[in-house]
């Protein structure tokens, strides 16, 4: 009963936070500036790690797919490219990127807002008459929803390129087969699905992390806990949403 009550309390506070985000800003210029600062932090700041991880994920997926198909007479080697492409576009690019960003961006958002709360910076803005949900949270969520899908697209491209590099380093398979596989049976809906997932995941990661940080009470220990919880809950809800989207749209 107590757990259910807590759950509804969190849900209610979360929905109130989201509703309050949609108020007219006192000065658009300040909000734009904050939005671009966040887009830079979230998007540009995460590009390198996303790029690096996705290249290796693509390469490993290609090597392991090739290993499993090795010696199979009825499956042409071009299917390596097909499997790598579909695995990356369907699952690895959106989900893996979201999980990476839950760790990097999610913990950063929660700890930044948590520190602002604990050091009374949020109270200072409130007393100035600033709508903090709009200025601090909406800008971060919008920045995440704009930049994370771009990162996912980069991850998809670099993952497929990682597979290409792995194939080119292998003497068993040709890059021509890999490229033929990538082009085989392509359905544009796959990319749509990737973007649907990435928009959903970016909202989940950023909103949960902002919620955890914004409502921190206490000191540095609580900021640490909020940061950890932001990552854990973001990952859980990303995986849950992944399943729901796959079930509904495939």
């Amino acid at each position, binding site marked *: 009963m107590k757990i259910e009550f807590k759950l509804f309390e969190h849900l209610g506070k979360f929905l109130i936070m989201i509703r309050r985000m949609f108020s007219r800003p006192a000065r658009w210029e300040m909000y734009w500036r904050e939005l671009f600062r966040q887009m830079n932090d979230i998007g540009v700041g995460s590009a390198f790690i996303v790029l690096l991880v996705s290249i290796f994920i693509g390469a490993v997926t290609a090597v392991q797919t090739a290993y499993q198909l090795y010696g199979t007479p009825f499956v042409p080697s071009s299917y390596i490219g097909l499997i790598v492409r579909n695995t990356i576009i369907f699952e690895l690019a959106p989900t893996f990127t979201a999980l990476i960003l839950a760790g990097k961006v999610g913990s950063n958002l929660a700890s930044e807002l948590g520190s602002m709360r604990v050091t*009374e910076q949020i109270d200072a803005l409130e007393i100035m*008459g600033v709508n903090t949900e709009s200025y601090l949270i909406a800008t971060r969520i919008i920045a995440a929803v704009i930049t994370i899908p771009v990162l996912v697209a980069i991850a998809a491209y670099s993952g497929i390129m990682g597979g290409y590099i792995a194939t080119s380093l292998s003497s068993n398979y040709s890059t021509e087969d890999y490229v033929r596989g990538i082009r085989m049976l392509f359905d544009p809906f796959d990319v749509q699905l990737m973007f649907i997932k990435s928009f959903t995941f970016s909202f989940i990661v950023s909103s949960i992390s902002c919620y955890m940080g914004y409502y921190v009470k206490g000191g540095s220990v609580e900021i640490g806990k909020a940061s950890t919880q932001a990552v854990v809950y973001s990952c859980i809800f990303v995986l849950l949403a992944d399943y729901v989207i796959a079930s509904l749209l495939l």
Partner: protein
Amino acid sequence: MIEISNITKSFGEQRVLTDVSTVFEAGKTNLVIGISGSGKTVLMKIMTGLMTPDTGKVHFNGRDFFALSRNDQKNLRREIGMLFQGSALFDSMTVEENVMLPLNMFSNATKKEKLDRVNFCLERVNLAGANKKFPGEISGGMKKRVGIARAIVLNPKYLFCDEPNSGLDPRTSIVIDDLIIEITREFNMTTIINTHDMNSVMEIGEKIIFLYKGVKDWEGDKSQILDVTDENLNSFIFASDFLKDARDALKEKIARNK
């Protein structure tokens, strides 16, 4: 003028404030004193609208804060300046950007006008030339002064200071106290200060209310402090033998002068 009436606040089972009423007048430094946990900060958070009381009202020149719409509350808040205990400066911004933030948010002035206003406020708190420093590069006393500059940049009618002297050496505390009292008189603000600092009580306490376990236990001014009979207040203000001796010596001196 700020009038609070019958403010009561509880957190769960714990009653923090009970039926607190008083009037804080404009142009005066009004002190709220009390031991840690007596409800001073909660009272200040209620007065600034950061917390809602269970019962009671807060009137700013006749306007009932909690009866206003959310938008009107925000507009009223623009008449409030607050100095926080930890200064609450934005670490990623310079001193100039910190002080300019309220102007950037709410003022239609040109960039030059804003900069002039920021420089005026920084000069007023004796921080001219510190514009480009970051909060991490300045001392605790300077942070408090930047906090004051930011609090007064929009010409507020009401100034709240939460423990302005905490963590400061006695000399810097006097500087901050002097600054607050000068600004209060210069701009005819209603200033409310939460403090533990006995020097502040004796120097700038034009009106003092003493909270004890969430109840207003005493109300008066600094001239009445020496003769106070309230046991709780006496044990709070003259907690050490040194302060008791100082009180007795001061009383003797006053008696001799009479």
